[in-house]
């Protein structure tokens, strides 16, 4: 079975729910504390960098973690074609590490998730839509074309910014993996002012994805209780513990990962 690492940097705070979502879709997943060093990561087949505030967002969100020893191993894995997912702060780290969009080389970022246009931290329920052909995005390639997934947006810095020519390249090259939409998949303005309505970026190979909203925070019905009123805290316990929409992201990741041959160890 494929093994997934969930690396933890000082300041990461979404590792438990990320791990639960991975385990819920049948993956063997493990938290890897930064003190274990890069060598500990090399035995894994895929990586999911969770949200939080790695290194307290010092210097810039994701900038310090992007240069961490743990990230050396993640970069090495991504370059070898392994699947890498970054969620929220994990996404910021992947962008700062130059893995996405990856148009200028390692640790040479050409894009950034920057402070929201409102200047405020946003926490709200959102929907995102797969913006490219699933075949262009092997990391979650089992999703249906145009798949709509509910998630929780929870960040102060999720607005994609890049130079105009780079944005044009990202749009034409299929790097904008998910965009913000409504429950029916119709586009809506990005709540954070993100360029190209971008909720997630990928790389040229589609094995790395950096997604700003949190699918793991909409993985069970009780997590939706404030968003659509269909699963109130007083509802039947079995009902609110059922998987909800965000789990689709992890199911697609698991299917794609399990479809790959597991390398001999």
């Amino acid at each position, binding site marked *: 079975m494929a093994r997934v690492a969930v690396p933890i940097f000082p300041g990461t705070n979404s590792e438990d729910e990320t791990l639960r979502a991975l385990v819920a879709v049948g993956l063997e997943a493990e938290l890897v504390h930064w003190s274990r060093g890069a060598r500990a990561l090399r035995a894994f087949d895929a990586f999911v960098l969770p949200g939080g505030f790695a*290194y*307290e967002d*010092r*210097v*810039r969100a994701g*900038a*310090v973690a992007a*240069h961490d*020893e743990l990230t050396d191993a993640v970069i090495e894995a991504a370059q070898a074609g392994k699947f890498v997912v970054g969620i929220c702060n994990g996404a910021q780290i992947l962008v*700062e590490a130059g893995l996405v969009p990856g148009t200028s080389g390692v*640790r040479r*970022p*050409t*894009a*950034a998730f*920057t402070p929201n246009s409102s200047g405020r931290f946003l926490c709200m329920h959102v929907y995102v839509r797969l913006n490219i052909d699933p075949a262009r995005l092997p990391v979650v390639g089992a999703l249906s074309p145009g798949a709509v997934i509910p998630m929780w947006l929870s960040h102060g810095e999720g607005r994609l*910014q*890049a*130079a105009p020519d*780079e944005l044009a390249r990202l749009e034409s090259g299929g790097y904008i993996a998910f965009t913000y939409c409504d429950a029916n998949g119709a586009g809506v303005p990005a709540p954070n002012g993100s360029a190209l309505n971008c909720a997630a970026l990928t790389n040229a190979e589609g094995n790395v994805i950096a997604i700003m909203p949190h699918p793991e925070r909409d993985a069970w019905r009780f997590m939706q209780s404030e968003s659509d009123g269909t699963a109130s805290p007083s509802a039947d316990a079995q009902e609110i513990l059922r998987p909800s929409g965000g789990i689709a992201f992890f199911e697609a990741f698991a299917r794609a990962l399990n479809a790959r041959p597991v390398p001999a160890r």
Partner: protein
Amino acid sequence: MAEKTFAIALTIPDNEAFTARETLRRIGIAVEDVRRSDIWTFTVDDANAAGLRSTIETIETIFNPNKHQLEERAGARPQRGEVWIEPREETRMSSVGGRTIAGVHAIRRRTAWRLVDADGNDVPVTELDRAVETFLCNPAFQKAIR
């Protein structure tokens, strides 16, 4: 109308600068000390310019006399050995910490970095450039001023 620039730096240990130093060393830049300041530039009416410093000293969201030092700069340019990092987007604020300041029309914030070697000198310009290009500045949304 006048433009007044102030640098606010911690007098207690600066954890962010310490973390930056560790990362710069990991990149291979020989740096003994990293000094960081917040640079605030105010566009202010002439009539309010003289009293601006004492007003800033009362805004505890940016200046706490128990842990900060406040230095008025001669102009809105980095000193020798410094690099300032600022957003590419023009982001002029009209308030600080939710507080407007009498006579102030625009406020701009930047971060100043100074890298010092083991002899107490500024690191060579080539090393400062390398620090900027590899770590201190993300050119996708920031620019460096030297």
